[in-house]
């Protein structure tokens, strides 16, 4: 025991140089990017709904929708960042909640291309809103990594909840969640129009 204590003391006293680096702002950039999509309930509802709908539609929509949304959303963010205007962004976001919620609630099964198109159109609005809201001074790259990861994880949460589909009661619960998303979207639409 004494030997171990002496070894520990020696290790503590033999101060090694610290691993400092000049990459200031990286962690704060990641965290603020990660928190950003989660902080707005209008975004959360739509992103979870994309995952839920993908789970209802099954392969290949199960993964195609969550691949499409972050990619097109990033494109929307790109447009927002370079200053390309997009009218009625908040209305578009609220409508995304209503429409995607309805798709889940009604278990809609449109052709794959039109499901992707619908998700892509709404993703532009979400991305644009995020792009114009990005904070000054944060590390752009780590912010973007956190932002895209959080979006993808929200879809994954939707897919995980959508696994309830396997049981009859679960199917009903998922459709009920779609109704709630739709109602949430209606609330945000009311707020955007008021």
């Amino acid at each position, binding site marked *: 025991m004494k030997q171990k204590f002496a070894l520990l003391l020696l290790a503590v006293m033999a101060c090694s*140089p*610290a*691993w*400092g*680096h*000049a*990459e200031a702002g*990286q962690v704060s950039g990641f965290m603020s990017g990660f928190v950003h999509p989660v902080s707005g309930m209008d975004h959360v509802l739509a992103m979870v709904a994309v995952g839920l709908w993908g789970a209802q539609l099954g392969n290949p929509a199960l*993964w195609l929708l*969550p*691949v*499409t949304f*972050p*990619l097109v*959303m*990033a*494109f929307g*963010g*790109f*447009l*927002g*960042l*370079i*200053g390309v205007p997009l009218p009625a962004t908040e209305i578009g976001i609220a409508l995304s909640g209503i429409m995607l919620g309805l798709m889940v609630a009604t278990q809609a099964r449109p052709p794959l291309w039109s499901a992707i198109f619908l998700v892509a159109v709404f993703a532009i609005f979400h991305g644009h809103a995020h*792009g114009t809201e*990005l904070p000054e001074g944060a590390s*752009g*790259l*780590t*912010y*973007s*990594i956190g*932002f*895209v*990861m959080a*979006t*993808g994880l929200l879809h994954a949460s939707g897919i995980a909840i959508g696994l309830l589909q396997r049981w009859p009661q679960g199917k009903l619960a998922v459709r009920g969640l779609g109704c709630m998303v739709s109602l949430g979207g209606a609330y945000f639409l009311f707020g955007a129009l008021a």
Partner: protein
Amino acid sequence: MPMHRTWPILIAALGLALGLFPLSAFAHLVSTGLGPVYDGFGHFLLSLEDLLPLLALMILGGMHGEVAGRRAMLVLPPVWLLAALVTALAFQAASLPVFVSTLLTIGLGILVSLDRRMPLAGLTVLILFVATLSGQSTGIALAGQAGSVLMILGSTAALFVVATLVPALVLKISSRAPWLRIAMRVFGSWIAGVGLLMLGWQLRG
């Protein structure tokens, strides 16, 4: 012209276009306090804008199977080392557009998410192209620094670790279950998404 012949030509043309379009570079160095080799090691692992396209390339190599994964592991580090050394020692005033890494990130992320099979020759040219540009970028960042050669060697060691582990890991997990291969494609779309946002960020200034 068949698609497998146009790939290498397209990639080479893109490389030439980027090489002929110099702009200012942005550099940042890591100080570990453990000497230039470890500084270089840390610089590579913490330079996410350089690491991300290479990570996508390694994933792409792993998704193309054992031969392509080995090719990525064996071709990327030496070419990258050569490009970095030549740039740091002979072309100290050279510069690359800031968005080169970003465009590489977007392009390679999209290639991973598409999961389209490329001919081995095309993939090799792509590896050479990315290795040259990425090595050049690091060479520019480290040029003129004390111990720049040792720093580049440290960075190459870190690159070799990544180039060895990532394709092997991708190969292993994507052969286990189809959904894990899909997860790789999703990851590719995330990488491309990050690249797109970065491009917007860079163009905004």
